[in-house]
């Protein structure tokens, strides 16, 4: 037995169903863990009153024999770039300090309708631009496994909260790896769905052709439960797909026998931490032992994906962030300034260094004289990257890669050089460029105890296959959840009489 907030969603669901726990107890347990782990700086805003009210309502529904489903009464949290009516949304930026959302994002509306309890808003890299959650106006997030290390980013608060047990699951956004990379660094499961699978309405835009919302959770089953609630068509997002949403949780039992898993040779190169390599090799051996066929594939443009990605995402960001001009929302620079001066001073004071750098780069690659050489070239390379993946998926059902080349790096280690920070995304950006779904799940730990993540990529709308492959690994490796808790939470568990 572990503390209530160290349970998974499906474990909590079983307890709620049997009347052995209440949503109010689960919510209080998360709020207590949140207080104990304040130093992680994972939360930017907590709504205890709203959460406990929603939890009481969920308990009443259950008592009346009318629970809404697997998420009813489950405490979850949201990256602070998703709007919840009446709560702040800051995107971890000084620019939006004090902004109160006037409406719910579609994913928030869906979570509320499913009965989920919303605990609060989670820290992140400012406007989702970063790979370490250090680019937050409100201070960096700590990795629950080692407070001197980054949790990854940009959804670092989401990953840290789920790992620490201050939320049963969380939503993040993934533009170049921002769900999968922090999931790998914090030892949790993270899914970036197919572009268009989940509505982006009410989610603050960074790079509109790359952004996707997805869940971070303690295990693959929880990931499926979250995804089947948030996925689906939304008339308020013209890029949302009409394809029906399958039951992802029902698809988990399929196993991997007969599936062909491709290993892209370009992802197993020099520069990968040998411990990461060994953990991925072990996961592949497990799948092979379960009856999967493993084949070598090639993605020749892998080495160009980061360059392509940083041209596209900065171009789109410079356009999307033009709306923050101190007129309709956000802060405005003080002083008796003319219109242009007010715009310039507002944006200079409101945005942090990394956001300004990306706006500048994006402005440059879209400007007259450079557009063809940079933006148009990157869009052509994007086609080549997509063709690579399409060719690979003609010979296999899914690709298996490391999520990241290394385990979590130290806080401050990569801040001075933007290029080394950008290279943290080398294995994840391809999925965003091609719009593919990707899943990261824990597959081991390095010698220092830091988690290692394995990434599974699939063709468009193959989320069910990815989850099924992930679930097979989880089952084969044993479901001992305590093993995956970060040190502090494990210590707590042992205090309660559970071996850590």
């Amino acid at each position: 037995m572990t503390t209530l907030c160290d349970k998974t969603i499906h474990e909590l669901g079983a307890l709620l169903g049997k009347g052995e726990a209440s949503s109010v107890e689960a919510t209080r347990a998360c709020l207590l863990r949140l207080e104990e782990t304040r130093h992680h700086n994972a939360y930017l805003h907590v709504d205890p009153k709203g959460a406990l009210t929603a939890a009481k309502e969920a308990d009443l529904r259950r008592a009346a024999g009318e629970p809404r489903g697997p998420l009813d009464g489950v405490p979850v949290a949201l990256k602070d770039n998703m709007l919840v009516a009446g709560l702040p949304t800051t995107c971890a930026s000084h620019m939006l300090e004090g902004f109160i959302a006037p409406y719910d994002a579609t994913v928030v509306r869906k979570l509320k309708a499913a009965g989920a309890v919303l605990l609060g808003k989670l820290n992140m890299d400012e406007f989702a631009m970063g790979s370490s959650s250090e680019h937050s106006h409100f201070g960096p997030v700590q990795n629950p496994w080692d407070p001197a290390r980054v949790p990854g980013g940009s959804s670092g608060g989401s990953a840290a909260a789920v790992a620490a047990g201050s939320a049963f699951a969380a939503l993040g956004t993934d533009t170049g790896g921002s769900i999968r990379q922090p999931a790998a660094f914090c030892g949790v499961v993270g899914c970036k769905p197919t572009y268009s699978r989940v509505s982006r309405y009410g989610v603050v835009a960074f790079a509109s052709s790359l952004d996707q919302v997805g869940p971070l959770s303690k295990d693959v089953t929880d990931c499926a439960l979250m995804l089947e609630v948030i996925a689906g068509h939304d008339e308020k997002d013209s890029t949302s797909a009409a394809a029906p949403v399958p039951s992802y949780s029902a698809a988990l039992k399929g196993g991997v026998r007969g599936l062909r898993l491709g290993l892209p040779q370009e992802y197993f190169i020099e520069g990968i931490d040998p411990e990461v390599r060994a953990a991925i090799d072990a996961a592949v051996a497990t799948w092979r032992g379960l009856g999967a066929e493993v084949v070598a594939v090639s993605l020749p443009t892998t080495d160009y994906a980061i360059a392509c990605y940083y041209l596209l995402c900065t171009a789109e960001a410079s356009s999307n962030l033009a709306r923050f001009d101190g007129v309709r929302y956000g802060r405005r620079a003080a002083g008796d300034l003319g219109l242009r001066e007010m715009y310039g001073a507002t944006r200079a004071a409101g945005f942090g260094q990394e956001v300004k750098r990306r706006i500048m780069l994006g402005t440059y690659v879209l400007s007259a004289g450079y557009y063809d050489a940079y933006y148009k070239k990157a869009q052509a390379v994007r086609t080549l990257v997509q063709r690579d993946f399409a060719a690979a998926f003609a010979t296999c059902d899914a690709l298996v890669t490391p999520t990241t080349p290394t385990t979590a790096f130290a806080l401050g280690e990569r801040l001075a050089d933007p290029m080394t920070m950008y290279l943290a995304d080398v294995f994840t950006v391809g999925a965003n460029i091609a719009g593919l779904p990707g899943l990261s799940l824990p597959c081991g730990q390095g010698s220092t105890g830091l988690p290692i993540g394995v990434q599974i990529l699939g063709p468009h709308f193959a989320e069910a296959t990815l989850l099924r492959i992930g679930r097979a690994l989880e089952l084969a490796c044993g479901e001992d959840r305590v093993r995956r808790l970060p040190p502090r939470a494990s210590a707590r568990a042992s205090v309660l009489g559970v071996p850590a």
Partner: protein
Amino acid sequence: MSRAKLTRPAAAEMDLKVVRHMARLAHLTLDEGELSTMGRDLSRILGYVAKLDELDTTDVPATTHAVALPTAWRDDLVRPGLAHEQRLGNAPEPLGEGFGVPKIIE
């Protein structure tokens, strides 16, 4: 697009005049020190992305959509939206029923 048309600066430092022009286009008031740092960072990033030149993209169409989706259509109907006070609720300087901005005509 022929490769001959590509005119990228070498890895050398970006001209400060160009950096200043970009800051103006991006509506960012940066001081001389920030412009210089920005120029150095952008030069380094552009030096890295120049590796895309190694790929021949002659006759490769530019991507327009990562996932093929039909164009979304709907009837052009008036539907309820946010209330007026909600729209103005986050404005740094609401002015009557609108957004206050600095005077632009003397």
